[in-house]
């Protein structure tokens, strides 16, 4: 999850042609990628799509640290090996679909600041849903700092040791409990500051 901050940094600070492209166009492009993934059952075709997405990934100079994020869903795709009865064609098909999907979405998020994405989504989705999405995304970054601090504190004080699994489990759970309490406190402050700024049930986004 630490890559999330890089993702956001890349979206805001990037200067490539993909970063300059309109968010609406990029979302339409992502929908096209999705349509191809859903309908295509042809390995060379999917491979070509993956190569195109990879080329865009490197041409757009997205930080290489983020690339591992596109490989993460492969962990779960391994379950399909058992479902398919070890059929190579099926496994390759699934793996390519996974890689195309994850590379597409990561590319979209790494080249488009999230307020711009939510601004486009706000035109088609209910405002309450887009607001919840926006607040969640914002909260992730608030909590990420708390999580990092809690993790450091736990490791520095020897809170997580595999020799003592029960104690470690208690400490990890307390860490999560701490995260939740901090999160709830932050949400109460956030609501108060939103009210002070004139929040009346809708967040207005600046234009693209």
């Amino acid at each position: 999850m630490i890559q999330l901050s890089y993702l956001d940094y890349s979206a805001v600070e990037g200067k490539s042609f993909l970063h300059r492209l309109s968010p609406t166009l990029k979302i339409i492009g992502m929908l096209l990628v999705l349509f191809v993934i859903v309908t295509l059952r042809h390995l060379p075709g999917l491979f070509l799509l993956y190569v195109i997405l990879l080329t865009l990934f490197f041409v757009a100079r997205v930080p290489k640290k983020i690339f591992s994020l596109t490989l993460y869903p492969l962990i779960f795709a391994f379950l399909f090996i058992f479902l398919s009865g070890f059929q190579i064609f099926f496994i390759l098909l699934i793996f390519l679909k996974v890689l195309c999907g994850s590379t597409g979405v990561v590319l979209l998020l790494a080249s488009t600041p999230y307020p711009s994405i939510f601004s486009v989504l706000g035109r088609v989705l209910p405002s309450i849903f887009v607001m919840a999405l926006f607040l969640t995304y914002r909260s992730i970054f608030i909590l990420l700092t708390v999580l990092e601090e809690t993790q450091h504190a736990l490791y520095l004080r020897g809170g997580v040791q595999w020799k003592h699994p029960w104690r470690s489990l208690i400490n990890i759970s307390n860490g999560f409990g701490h995260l939740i309490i901090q999160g709830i406190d932050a949400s109460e402050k956030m609501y108060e500051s939103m009210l002070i700024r004139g929040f009346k049930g809708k967040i207005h986004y600046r234009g693209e």
Partner: protein
Amino acid sequence: MSHIHFPDGVLPVWLWASGFIVAILIGGILLRFTKKEELTRRLPLLGMMAAVMVLGASVEIVPIAYHVNLTVFSGILLGPSLIFLATFVVNVVLALFGHGGITVIGLNTLTLSIEGILGYYCFRFFWRVLKRLTPAIFLGTFIALLFSTFAMIGVVGLGTSHYEELIHQEGKGIFEFHLSKEKEEHHPGEAAEEKVNLRRFMAIVLPLGFIGWILEGVITALIARYVQRLRPDLLRLKN
């Protein structure tokens, strides 16, 4: 385990499209019966709890590909109607990070919200019966996860004929787009193989799931104990 980490393009269109329709319908009905002021007031909390769930999903127990969901605990804090919206948001955010496909957001929301809603009611029931926080939370979480995992297996099972088609697709065609449940006829041997494969899938998922249910139950109970110690007002428990 209840979260379907399905990529896009694996499930049949009729299945994931139905998932979206049902999720939107349920979401619409729940939101209609929630007071607007209440919703607006609790929106930052909803965002925070959704963020906690997303961050929980980032803590991976690698050997069994399990991560804590914290959906049950979020359900207890948010209540049954808000947890539905929260799980919808969580699934959208996770899909945007490549964690599960975009097309399966609806189905994932349904299975994950079963966990949150059932967890809420089970916890309330066990709290009333046992009057002890740790076993009430543990049992609530365990049962909710058990049901949502079976819901997930049910969804996987509904797409079995489609996987069969994909497996036997090699060299047949390039594009496919069916909105109906129509399928090709299969030989009896193929049907048997289908069944065996789903059983194999269950044989992998259920033992791993069992470890996950226990782990999540223990972690949720420990978190609840910690939260109850520091902020007893959050769980709203009456003795």
